[in-house]
Structures are given as structure tokens and as C-alpha cells.
């Protein structure tokens, strides 16, 4: 809303001289550009907010209604439950969940009393498999087998020995409970993988959970296990992506490539449209590197010019650098001319130097296609934050530079065209200075130095 904008603008940048500003239309393109930029930012913010919501929810205590229902144990007296087969929870299972939750609530009530007595009479099945690996890394206060579930004797065995102990870092106290109380994370049978070899170890769990609703990622996150169905699908997925990324070879592939080329040629020959000239997408792909080249060349030039050579060799080095930059700039300009001619479409089949066949793809970049996702390894949250902040910073600078150019093209002529003096012109000039030279963040002060008559 421009009106609101004007008012707010007036408040925010209240430093501006009061009164009417330029009545001239703000160049519409400029406004459109800024609005586009704002929209892009807002969209990004929305996405970020969405993922923030999800992450925050994950880090809070998981709501019992939607979480880890522990293994169904009708009561503390039921000693062993059969490990449920690995399968995806069916809708029926999901329906059953509600009943289970009710049973659980009851179970929890009963257990509260029992746990007080420190009762422990069942061997517990440790989790094995992938969790075991984590056990060695986590500083889990594991207890020797046979030791009563007494929280006082928290001797720490050497790490990595008791591979089977489920790590429970950060658990406030050992709340050793009954067998049925093994943490079962996830809802439904398919979500957790029951530990094989149930009961064949005498290791008491260090992570017995009393209340299913008290699941937090911080305390019991390492107990999580992905459902088998998902694991299978995910590993197949990454295999398929890797296959897709590998360059296919073979006779049939070559023949297909030839057939495609032929098809494109035939189509061009039978088409009535202009056969020469570059498409907009191709120009995009070509102009990008040139723009980048220009900014890098300029940066290097300024570095060279600002350095103070200590001796003749350095001076010579600088001269050579500048001459080299000149030559490269020349090349870039040449390439640009060709591109320009090609855009106009006058020149039949112009092919700027180094034009890649892939230039026709709007995605540009020219890098070899790598379809399977890569890993990006970070070592600390701080490092991740630095990386993310830099990414944003670069994106922001890109945008600022773009806007700066548009502003220059639109605002400077406006300032030049106006009759100097006059409050309007001063106000415009001051605003333009702020926008063009200070990124809109600061203002110059203008003093009128009236000669005392």
C-alpha cells in the first residue's frame, strides 16, 4: 500500500526535510523490482518459518498423542512381549493405537507405584544393530549386568565395551523399570525395530522410560530407529540416484544420442521460424559468466592499483597484471559483441567462443550434471551458522548490486533532469544519495550556508 508506505516512510526516515517531495512518478520499474525482491524474501521467510516450526516441535517434548507409544504392555506383570514383525503400520494398526494409548495410560499409573519399590525382575533386551554403534560414542552411564537397578551405583564402565547398552545421555536419573518398558519409539509396530535376541542379555537398560509422554529428543534421541520400510526405500533411492548420475554408455546410448541430434536437425530444417540467433535462455547462460568476469576483473584491477610496489620487480608485476587484465577485458568485450549480434539474429549461426552445447539449458552454470545429492559435512553448529550466514550475505549482495544498478539507471537521470536548487530537488538529491550511496541506511545532512548580508 503506497499510501501507508509513504506515511511509514515518513516516520522511519523522518530525518528527511518536511514538505512535499518530488511529485514525479517514481519509476515503475524500480518499484516493481523492489516489490519482486520483497516477495522473494517473504517467500523465503515463509519456508524458513515452516521448517522452524517443525524443528522446534521436534525439540520439545513429543506429545503423547502423536508420539512414541511405547510397546504395548497391558500391565507390569506381563513379562515379555513378542517382538512385532517389521512392517509398515497399517491403518488397522493405527486404529489400534488409540486403544493401546488407553492401555498405556493405565500402565503408567500402575507403574508409578511399582517403580517406587525399585522392582526389577526381568532381563531386558538390548537394542542391537545400528544403535549399538552409538552406544560406543555416547557417554552412556551403563551399568554392569546383574547390578540391581539402583540409581546410586552408577559406575561407568569403559566406553565401547558394552555395545549393547542403549545409551541414555542426559537422563536425570536411572529410572529402571520393567521389561515392557523398553523404549519403543515411533508409533505402530513398523516404526521401531524390535531388538533381536530379546532377553538373551542380562544387561539392564539404562534408558528405561517410565512415562511415554516424556520423550524428548535431547534425552532419548539416540534410541530412535528408522522403520525398515523407510530404510529400504531410502537406500534404494540413493542407489537409483547414483545410477542416474553415472553417464550411460553403450551402443544403444550412442545410437539414441545420434537419433536425437538427427531429430533436432531435421526439425530445424523443416521449421519456418528463425533458425539463427540465440534464444533468451541461451543469452542468459552466456551473460552470467560475463557479468561475473567483469566484477572479478574490476576487483583485481583495484587490488593492483591500490598496492604499493616496493621494488622494480613488483612494479613490473603490477604492470603485467594490468596489461593482462586489459587483454582479458578485450576478449570479454569481443565475446559480448558476438553475443549481441547473435541476439539480434542477423548473423547466421553465430557461435560465441566457448559456447557450450549445454548453454541452451536455462539452469546454466555449465557444470557437469550431478543428480545424486552430495553430502555437506559440517563440524559444529557455529560452522553451520557461518556457512548459512555467508550464503545469505552473498545472496543479499547479489540482490543489492542488482538493485543498485537499477537505481542508478533510473534515479540518476531523474536527479539530473530536475531544476537544481529548490527544496524538491534537495530532498530528491538527499534521498537519492541515501539510496544510491548508503544502501538506504543513512542520510547525508545538507546545510544551507546563507551569507549574512
Amino acid at each position, binding site marked *: 500500500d503506497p499510501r501507508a508506505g509513504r506515511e511509514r516512510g515518513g516516520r522511519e526516515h523522518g530525518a528527511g526535510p518536511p514538505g512535499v517531495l518530488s511529485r514525479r512518478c517514481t519509476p515503475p520499474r524500480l518499484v516493481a523490482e523492489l516489490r519482486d525482491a520483497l516477495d522473494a524474501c517473504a517467500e523465503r521467510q515463509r519456508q524458513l518459518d515452516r521448517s522452524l516450526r517443525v524443528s522446534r516441535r521436534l525439540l520439545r517434548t513429543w506429545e503423547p498423542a502423536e508420539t512414541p507409544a511405547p510397546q504395548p504392555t497391558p500391565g507390569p506383570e506381563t513379562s515379555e512381549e513378542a517382538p512385532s514383525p517389521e512392517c509398515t503400520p497399517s491403518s488397522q494398526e493405527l486404529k489400534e493405537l488409540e486403544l493401546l494409548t488407553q492401555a498405556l495410560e493405565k500402565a503408567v499409573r500402575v507403574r508409578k507405584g511399582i517403580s517406587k519399590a525399585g522392582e526389577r525382575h526381568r532381563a531386558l533386551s538390548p537394542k542391537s544393530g545400528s544403535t549399538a554403534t552409538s552406544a560406543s560414542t555416547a557417554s552412556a552411564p551403563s551399568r554392569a549386568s546383574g547390578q540391581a537397578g539402583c540409581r546410586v551405583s552408577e559406575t561407568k564402565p569403559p566406553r565401547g565395551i558394552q555395545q549393547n547398552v542403549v545409551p541414555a545421555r542426559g537422563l536425570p536419573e536411572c529410572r529402571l523399570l520393567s521389561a515392557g518398558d523398553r523404549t519403543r519409539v515411533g508409533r505402530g509396530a513398523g516404526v521401531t525395530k524390535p531388538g533381536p535376541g530379546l532377553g538373551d542379555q542380562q544387561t539392564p537398560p539404562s534408558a528405561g522410560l517410565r512415562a511415554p509422554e516424556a520423550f524428548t529428543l535431547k534425552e532419548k534421541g539416540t534410541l530412535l530407529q528408522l522403520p525398515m520400510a523407510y530404510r529400504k526405500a531410502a537406500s534404494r533411492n540413493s542407489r537409483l540416484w547414483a545410477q542416474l548420475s553415472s553417464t550411460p554408455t553403450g551402443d544403444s546410448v550412442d545410437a539414441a544420442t545420434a537419433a536425437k541430434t538427427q*531429430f533436432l536437425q531435421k526439425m530445424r530444417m523443416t521449421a519456418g521460424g528463425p533458425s539463427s540467433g540465440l534464444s533468451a535462455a541461451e543469452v542468459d547462460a552466456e*551473460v552470467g559468466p560475463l557479468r561475473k568476469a567483469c566484477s572479478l576483473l574490476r576487483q583485481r584491477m583495484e587490488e593492483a592499483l591500490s598496492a604499493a610496489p616496493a621494488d622494480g620487480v613488483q612494479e613490473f608485476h603490477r604492470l603485467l597484471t594490468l596489461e593482462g587484465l586489459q587483454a582479458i577485458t578485450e576478449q570479454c568485450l569481443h565475446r559480448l559483441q558476438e553475443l549481441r549480434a547473435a541476439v539480434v539474429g542477423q548473423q547466421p549461426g553465430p557461435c560465441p567462443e566457448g559456447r557450450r552445447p549445454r548453454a541452451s539449458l536455462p539452469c546454466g552454470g555449465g557444470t557437469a550434471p550431478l543428480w545424486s545429492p*552430495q553430502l555437506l559435512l559440517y*563440524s559444529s553448529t557455529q560452522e553451520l551458522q557461518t556457512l548459512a550466514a555467508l550464503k545469505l550475505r552473498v*545472496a543479499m549482495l547479489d540482490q543489492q548490486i542488482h538493485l543498485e544498478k537499477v537505481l542508478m539507471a533510473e534515479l540518476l537521470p531523474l536527479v539530473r533532469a530536475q531544476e537544481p536548487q529548490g527544496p524538491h530537488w534537495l530532498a530528491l538529491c538527499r534521498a537519492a544519495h541515501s539510496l544510491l550511496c548508503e544502501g538506504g541506511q543513512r542520510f547525508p545532512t545538507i546545510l544551507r550556508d546563507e551569507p549574512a548580508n
Partner: protein
Amino acid sequence: MGRRRRRVDREAAVGPLPEAIATLSRTLPAGPSPEIFRRAKFDRPEAAPALWRLLFHVLSLLSANGASASAAQEAQVRMVKSELRSQGYPRRALAQLPEDGSQGSRELLLALAWLLARGPLLERLLAQTRVPLGDEIPLFEGVSLVPLECDALARPSPSAPHVEADGPMDIRHLQWLMGKLLFQWRKLITSQQEQCALLGKIHTYTRGCHSDRSLGHLSVAETELLRDAEGGQQLLRRLERENARLEAALQWRCRELVFWRWMDTVLGTCPPEASHPTFLPRIPERGTGELELVARELQALQEELRGAVESRRAAWEARVGGWGPEWNAVQWASWEAVGHELAALQQAWEPGGAAAQPHGPCRLVKSDAGASRGPGLRAAQVIGVLRSREACLEAVLCQLQRQCRQELAKLAGALPGLIWILPSGH
């Protein structure tokens, strides 16, 4: 060998065409039934709507500016036409099709084949719609935040009408918008920092939970799948659908030859178009505005360099006059060193130059500082690349601002009796 190939070809020519088409249709997002393709060969109108929809879907995925799928039929047809034209699609017949989307199934089939023949279309479509399993730092490389780069300056102000409707605006509106933008950026930065902190926590807390050892911990999506079983089921279904498409794409690579033979016959059924080189006016090139901008910048740079070099060269020649032969060796070394430096500089903008810059989505993996083995990019590497990019962009922005300052100072300097006090910080 040759005989074998011929035999294979003959087989391919008879039987597996429907199979190839079915594979293609399974790979495409919302691919139509194979029957549609067959009818399109004969330009049957009943096949047209499905193909318009398909092309609209494909092209809007590729252009990634999220044209809404709910766009009206006419809008979809227009979008398909203009997008194909901007990519240089040569056939005129397509542009002449009626906009109600009732006709042109053969032309659309040809256009689809053209897109397929030109590049890794299926792979890109798959990558575009990939089910996100891992955590990523979104790459907003230019495109999303800088509105299509070249688009900006040359576009015939599509938003002009609504701006006019708002009435005349003054520069304060611009300032307000700019302030709002700065504020938005700050908010984004804060949110992203928080998101990174949360990711770090989730990754740490789920350490060792992943069945894939190279990943180690769970991602948000995976943890969420455990928390919310129903959502997890949906994710699983989407993943399985994606797997099916990926498999089809791999099969397509083995089967596509027969499709291309068939397309050749489809093209053969079209009469050649009369040549009208000037008929299709090239769109007032979106790229030209940006092109001119770069041209201007390059020319300015060239001027500056010329000035800097000329004076220095002259001074140098005067100075170096009586230096001995040992100087030759030094000269050679300098030549070589500068040559290397500049080649490295050129690498930075040539495609494929910035090797450490990831060009796709990367799955974030928290690994202990010590573990530097294994595949994957290191954050430190990427940070290095980004820092130099940042420095480069900052220099460019500063240069532009300096230029503006000079220009404005020139304009303001003509006025007597005014004192300009620039904000501190320069």
C-alpha cells in the same frame, strides 16, 4: 557386432515402442497415458488437452518460478508458447495454435520431443521434484532473489499498470520499500541462525540413529517421520513413487532409441513449414537489457585499464632502460607468475570453474571435526568459496556506490551555499 546391432534394431522397431512410450510416461511428472502419445501422432484433438497440461507442468517445473498449476487453460497455453519460444523452439506452427488448448496434439508431441532431445530433461525434472529427505541449506543462488537477472531491465514493465493505479508515488515510497527490504533480510538472517542451531541439536541428539553409516544421524524429515507416523507414511509413499520414476528413467535410457525412430516418422508426417525468417519477431529480448548493462560495465573497465596501463607503461620504459641481462630472467618469472594468476582468475567465471561450489542441494551431515575422510564437501571449503565471493561482491557494490557518490557530488557541487555532510563511516 554390426549384425547384432541390426538385429536389435529390427526387434526394437516392432515390439517395444509401446513399452518405451509407457516408460517415458511413467518417468514424466503426471505423465499422460501412452495412448495419448499414439493419438498425438495423428494430431487427434482429444489428445491435446492432456499434452498442453503436461507441457505446462514440465515447463513450469523447469522455469522454477512456480507458475501455479491452477492457471486457466488459456494462461497455460500462453505460458507454454512463450516459454518454448524463449528457449528457441523453432516451429512456428505451435505459436499459431488456438489458445483454448483444443488442438495441436502433434505439435505438442514434437515440442516435448524437442525438449527431451536437447538435454537431460527427465533428470532435471526428477531433481526438481525430489523428495527431500535430508536437511539442506537452501541455495538461493541469484535466481530466486534477483528476479531473473536479465529479466529486470528489459522487461516491458509488466507491473506498470498496477503501479499507475496506485497513483503517482514519490521517492519516499522507494525509501520505504528499501527499508522494508533491509528489515526482511535481517529477519531472514535471524531465523536462519536459529534454524541452524536447531538443526545442530537435532543432528547431535540423533547421532548414530541412521542406518546409513555415512550419514550417521537423522534429518529433520526423518525425525519427523518417527514423531508423526501418518506424515511418515506419506513421506514413504512419495519416496516409493519417486523410486518408481527413477527406475523408469533408467529404463528409458535403454529404450529411448525406438522412441526417436518413431518421432522421426511423426516429424515426417508434418509438411515442412514455409520459411518466414522475419515472421516470428524475436521477443524483445529479455537478455538484451542485461547484455547492455554488462557491455557498459566492461567498456568502462576497459577505459580505466587503458588509462592505468598507458601511464605506467611509459614510466616503466623510461626506468628500465639500462638494466642488465639478469633482468631477463626476472622478467620471464614475472610473465609466468602473472600468467598463472590470471588463468586462475579466468577459471573463476568460466563454467565449471568454481569446483568447491556445490551446484545442487547438499545434504547436511554433522561429522566430528576429526573425521575428514569420506565423500562429501567440507563446510570449511564452501565457506572459503563464499568468503571470496562475498569480498568480490562487496568490492563491486562499493565501486558502484563510489561512482554514485561522485556523480551526485558533481551535481550538488554546482550549487553554492550548500554544505553536504556525509554520514560517517567513509
